[in-house]
């Protein structure tokens, strides 16, 4: 193995009227370090940008999907399924989604997503005798009113789909936070 020379770093001297001077070793250190960092950035930055690409993708808006005839909607929430086109990277599929659709007290139609806002299980309407006429989540007893207001466990109300009525049919759009309850 090679012998080790003593690389004692010299302190910068205060010559030139107190102006701090750089030693040769420091100058070379900064120059070589800077050049190395610049050269390393060449391959490393593209790879990092490549890896974080999903963070920088804009959120995509979903299209309107025809779900059910308007006349089928009652005051009691009912579950309807509908198919959406989904592009997931290189994989395109048509998953089936579920919405609970009902008329509010003002007669307006609204649609809730049954994904519990506690930890993401699926809620059901009127499925537990302890909580009649409520959405109930079997995982941790979270329950919600007909409008999706969170009554226990869950920190937020159920998410709501955009609703459009056209030609006697209910169309659902993108999913967003609940606007029916505060």
């Amino acid at each position, binding site marked *: *193995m*090679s012998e*080790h*020379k003593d*690389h004692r770093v010299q302190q910068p001297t205060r010559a030139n009227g107190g102006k701090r001077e750089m030693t040769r070793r420091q100058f070379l250190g900064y120059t070589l370090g800077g050049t190395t960092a610049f050269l390393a950035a060449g*391959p*490393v930055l*593209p*790879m990092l*940008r*490549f*890896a974080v*690409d999903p963070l*920088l993708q804009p959120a995509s808006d979903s299209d309107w999907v025809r779900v059910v005839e308007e006349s089928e909607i009652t005051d009691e929430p009912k579950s309807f399924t509908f198919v959406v086109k989904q592009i997931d*990277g*290189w*994989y395109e599929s048509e998953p089936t989604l579920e919405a609970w659709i009902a008329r509010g007290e003002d007669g307006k139609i609204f649609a809730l997503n049954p994904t519990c806002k506690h930890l993401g299980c699926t809620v059901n309407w009127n499925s537990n005798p302890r909580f009649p006429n409520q959405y109930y989540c079997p995982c941790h007893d979270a329950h919600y009113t007909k409008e999706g207001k969170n009554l226990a466990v869950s920190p937020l109300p159920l998410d709501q789909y955009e609703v459009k009525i056209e030609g006697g049919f209910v169309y659902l759009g993108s999913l967003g936070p609940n606007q029916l309850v505060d």
Partner: protein
Amino acid sequence: MLKSIYNWIDERLDVTPIWRDVADHEVPEHVNPAHHFSAFVYCFGGLTFFITVIQILSGMFLVFYYVPDIVNAYNSVDYLQHKVAFGVIVRGMHHWGASLVIVMMFLHTLRVFFTGSYKNPREMNWVVGMLIFFVMLGLGFTGYLLPWDNKAYFATQVGLQIADSVPFIGEYIKTFLQGGSIVGAQTLTRFFALHVFFLPAVLLGLLGAHFIMIRRQGISGPL
């Protein structure tokens, strides 16, 4: 700031001798291109290692998007190259680097051969270098199939026929690599496993041995 963090660690663990041992050593005059420009031929080994590092890094990043499955492999490569930012650069580094690493390794081998550096006491390092050469060719062969396009498929078809022609054990080698009776789903996952886990692990072990030996024995003397 950095200096004080380093000192704090160094006081406790005494790390300075470790990295000095690795990084701080004499470069003899006859291998330093600043003294004799023709000494650039001594750079090929280091360049091979440099490109190997790029290959490992870019490969690790490619696996963020790649899937080794016959239905999705081609589409995932197409997606990562054309839809993901800098995909063409990251895949380009891996694609061109794969060829370049073979070229640099070949030039390094020529230099070692014509300077007679393989002779006593460095015979073992030559043998390890040859093993590295074959592992690199294996990495090139297994990586070529992964995009799962026509070129990949038929290159593998041909490569496996060549393996098949080995006397006595050829058939077994072929079936082992193919994972079945056709080049298909099982071949792709096998090649993927070999390409990203087994061969790189062997390669890193051999590179470690290669470098330890060269530090023990030093660079061979001038011609």
